[in-house]
């Protein structure tokens, strides 16, 4: 279902527009003619089998990769002209895969995302200390501000990375497989936190995930990618769809939808 059909009733402009994007590595086509709009308040699960192009699409949205065809517009601007990157918070797939011996404190991890107005900003003690503290309070990690991040648990580290993304007051948060290697109760809390940020702060969230359970509980939109965008709809429609039934039957690593 094309995204403009779902969004036809909306009056506000999308925060992110993916327009006819195609991408390939050498001869292999990874993405084909993908159209997708993200609006304020969306909590979108981007799902699909391994190698479906989910991470590639995210990287194109973030200007880390250039599409072969099509374009991405961010906040109504062409991606080349877009300068307000603090409006987009990003937590990479490998965020928690850093070297545990890396001697960096929670405070430094969050502060490194703050744009520096002056070169010495990072060095002054009062450097937006309040911003860092507030971001950590939102994720409930303010008591760990001076801890070395390598000493925290996987779930705690994820919260710190959310704080790092939040410190610039973004309007969109993009998370790529954020709970890989985190136990089930911690995942639960983590997704509750995202749902709260989505509802209370109006933060639009794009979540790349394999977890179908999460899709049911928290998200309000679902996009399924398998090189093409094979499904895009609201959460309610998704649960009614043949597509969802097939997913449940096949298991979430085996999604092959024939349109």
């Amino acid at each position: 279902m094309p995204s403009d059909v779902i969004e036809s009733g909306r009056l506000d402009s999308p925060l992110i527009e993916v327009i006819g994007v195609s991408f390939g590595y050498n001869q292999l086509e990874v993405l084909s003619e993908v159209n997708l709009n993200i609006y304020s308040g969306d909590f979108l699960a981007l799902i699909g089998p391994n190698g479906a192009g989910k991470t590639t699409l995210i990287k194109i949205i973030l200007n880390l990769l250039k599409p072969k065809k099509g374009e991405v517009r961010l906040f109504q601007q062409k991606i080349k002209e877009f300068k307000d990157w603090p409006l987009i918070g990003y937590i990479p797939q490998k965020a928690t895969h850093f070297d545990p011996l890396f001697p960096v404190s929670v405070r430094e991890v969050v502060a490194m995302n703050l744009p520096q107005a002056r070169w010495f900003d990072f060095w002054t003690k009062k450097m937006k200390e309040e911003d860092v503290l507030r971001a950590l309070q939102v994720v409930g990690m303010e008591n760990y501000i001076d801890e070395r991040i390598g000493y925290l648990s996987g779930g705690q580290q994820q919260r710190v990375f959310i704080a790092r993304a939040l410190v610039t007051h973004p309007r969109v948060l993009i998370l790529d497989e954020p709970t890989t290697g985190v136990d089930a109760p911690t995942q639960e809390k983590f997704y509750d936190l995202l749902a709260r940020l989505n509802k209370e702060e109006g933060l639009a969230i794009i979540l790349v995930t394999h977890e179908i359970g999460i899709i049911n509980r928290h998200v309000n939109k679902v996009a399924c990618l398998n090189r093409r965008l094979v499904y895009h709809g609201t959460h309610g429609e998704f649960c009614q769809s043949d597509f969802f039934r097939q997913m449940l039957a096949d298991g979430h690593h085996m999604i092959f939808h024939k349109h």
Partner: protein
Amino acid sequence: MEVLWSGFQYGFFQRALLAGLGVGLACALLGVFLVLRKDAMIGHGLAHISFAGVAVGLFFGFLPLLSALVLTVITAGLLIKIRQKAGVYGDTAIALMSSFGFAVGILLVSLSSGMNVDLFAYLFGDILTISSLEVKISLALAVAVVLVIIFYFRNFLFTTFDPEAAQVAGIPEKRVEYLLTVLAGITVVLGMKVVGLLLVVALMVIPAASALRIARNFRQALVFAGIFSLSEIFVGLCLSFLLDIPAAAGIVLLGFGIYLIILFSQSRFRQRS
């Protein structure tokens, strides 16, 4: 003690101390980033290139420090290009460039007679014969390197810790990598007279490795690496003067000793707790 005190009166000892401390500080600060980027051997590779630079300088009669600087900085840029564009593994690119540099150096040495003695000073370090011009160049460049690190601290830290997120935050990751490699090239050349090109990587890696074991945050890591490096060079030079041992060996062995002490005391502490 009196012998040591008299040492401080000598011009050559003062020059050695000044150059050594300046270069040591720059090496240690840069080393923290290089070690964390798993790129510690880039110092070793660039040192071999600077060998060619020294040989060119001695062969054609330039100041070897300057010809080495020019050649090493250019090669540092090439190294990054090769890595980014040609799809060569990082360590393979270093091995390619360093062996090429060393081969050029050997060729030039064999073509000329009488420069073997001078070359030895660069291979194994000869800080006690450092000239006042070399001291001035070393100090000025060491100060410049430290200033650049302070200036670009956030960019260096962010790209080292999480390159992808840093790029999204608008930091030009490739340019930062290029800058770090060029700075590494400059400090390697400066470190050559202090401990020699075969040991210069030690000035970058050992204080950083020691500091990374005990620091609780990144600023501490930089401060500890700086303190370790300065004290190792100071004490190493004093020992070399007192015991008449090569300064390079004294400095490096002292640093290695400190690293071992930290390593063992940490493992004992862990066993107890």
